[in-house]
């Protein structure tokens, strides 16, 4: 997740204090990506260094009052505003699809691949255990969705993303289960080539 571009997007709306940015970021994405204040100020420092934001002492355009309540002193009283360079970077971010190759490796897929080659692991149980857990997460997301208001569109979209991703994982696990049920190793405990359940995995990312 690009905190950098998330902050730029929020500053594109209006100048803000760092503390306000944190609150707005979390309000927009729910509690999905909680940020600590340190992350926000570190990122703002880099953005300022790169010329994407400018920092000024004083109140943000539309108030908000976050700065005066902040305990960390006058450094936190700075108002940040997006610059032309920042707008260009933001535009580029929105215009560039997120590359699948740059996403983190899927631990679950690797775990199942490893379960298949490790001797005497009950792979079906691993699949079932994971599916139940993913479904519980799906239930949690759905409960959050029932509580979300129609006006919270950003949050609803993030929730939908989590819901569809969890659903895809359950479907993939169903698929794994069906493949496992059809698969018959010739000898109990032998090392089984992982080709049957790993063909849907994303290509490995070079480290």
């Amino acid at each position, binding site marked *: 997740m690009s905190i950098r571009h998330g902050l730029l997007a929020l500053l594109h709306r209006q100048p803000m204090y760092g503390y306000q940015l944190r609150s707005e970021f979390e309000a927009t994405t729910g509690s999905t990506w909680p940020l600590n204040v340190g992350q926000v100020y570190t990122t703002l420092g880099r953005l300022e260094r790169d010329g994407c934001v400018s920092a000024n002492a004083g109140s943000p355009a539309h108030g908000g009052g976050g700065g005066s309540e902040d305990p960390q002193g006058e450094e936190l009283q700075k108002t940040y505003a997006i610059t032309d360079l920042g707008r260009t970077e933001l535009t580029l971010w929105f215009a560039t699809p997120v590359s699948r190759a740059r996403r983190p490796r899927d631990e679950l897929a690797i775990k199942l691949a490893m379960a298949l080659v490790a001797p*005497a692991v009950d792979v079906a149980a691993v699949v079932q255990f994971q599916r139940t*857990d993913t*479904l519980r997460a799906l*239930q949690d*997301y*759905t409960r959050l969705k029932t509580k979300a208001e129609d006006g919270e569109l950003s949050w609803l979209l993030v929730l939908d993303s989590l*819901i*569809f991703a969890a*659903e895809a994982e359950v479907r993939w696990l169903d698929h794994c289960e069906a493949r496992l049920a059809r698969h018959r190793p010739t000898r109990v405990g032998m090392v089984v080539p992982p080709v049957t359940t790993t063909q849907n995995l994303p290509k490995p990312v070079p480290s």
Partner: protein
Amino acid sequence: MTTASGRDSQPVLQLRSLSRDHGTGATAVHALRGLSLSVDAGELVAVMGPSGSGKSTLLALAGGLDTASSGQVLVEGADLGGMSRRDLARLRRRSVGYVFQDFNLLPALTAIENVSLPRELDGTPARTARREALAALTDVGVSELADRFPDAMSGGQQQRVAIARALVGPRRLLLADEPTGALDSETGESVLRLIRRRCDDGAAGLLVTHEARHAAWADRVVFLRDGTMIDDTGRVSTVDSLLADGAG
């Protein structure tokens, strides 16, 4: 959940060690094998599992449309196994509502006639049945469609009418078989939201679906495989069995 009637202390639906076999001997098919499940008032339980796992058999047995080879089905405490066909038909009319993927509304009847029909068949005076039907249609947000025929309604509207019919009058057990299968994603979600709300209002729901996203609207999700329940999200899972004996 309890109400002033005191009847809610028992589950609306109880399945006890339920088995259903088709055929005998070497060709026997065991559609369900000793399955037990309870659904309380106010609870929605989703059933998932691959094709042939016993989901539809489970629903048919729960609704008294099929007979178990062994075990018991109790609806509001009444054992379906001990009932005459006439009593069973009456119980289905009074207590059990089905919602299907293809809505199953009678095309020659208006929405309100579709919903009031089971009440009238059960001996309720027409005026009372109509009043109950209108209340049920109001509950699902389509009272303005009361005099419309099914072919003049969208799929989502028809399914709402079907849910009204399933829970009209005293009916408290909703059995839904892939109720969103014929609907687009957003309409399907609105139907699930409605089923959820009707259960929150006190109905007991059993929802068969192959979509995890839809099952997630339920309080519990149970998985079937080969006629047995292999997991339940309402149950604490353990990792004891993940490594087979002698592993390593």
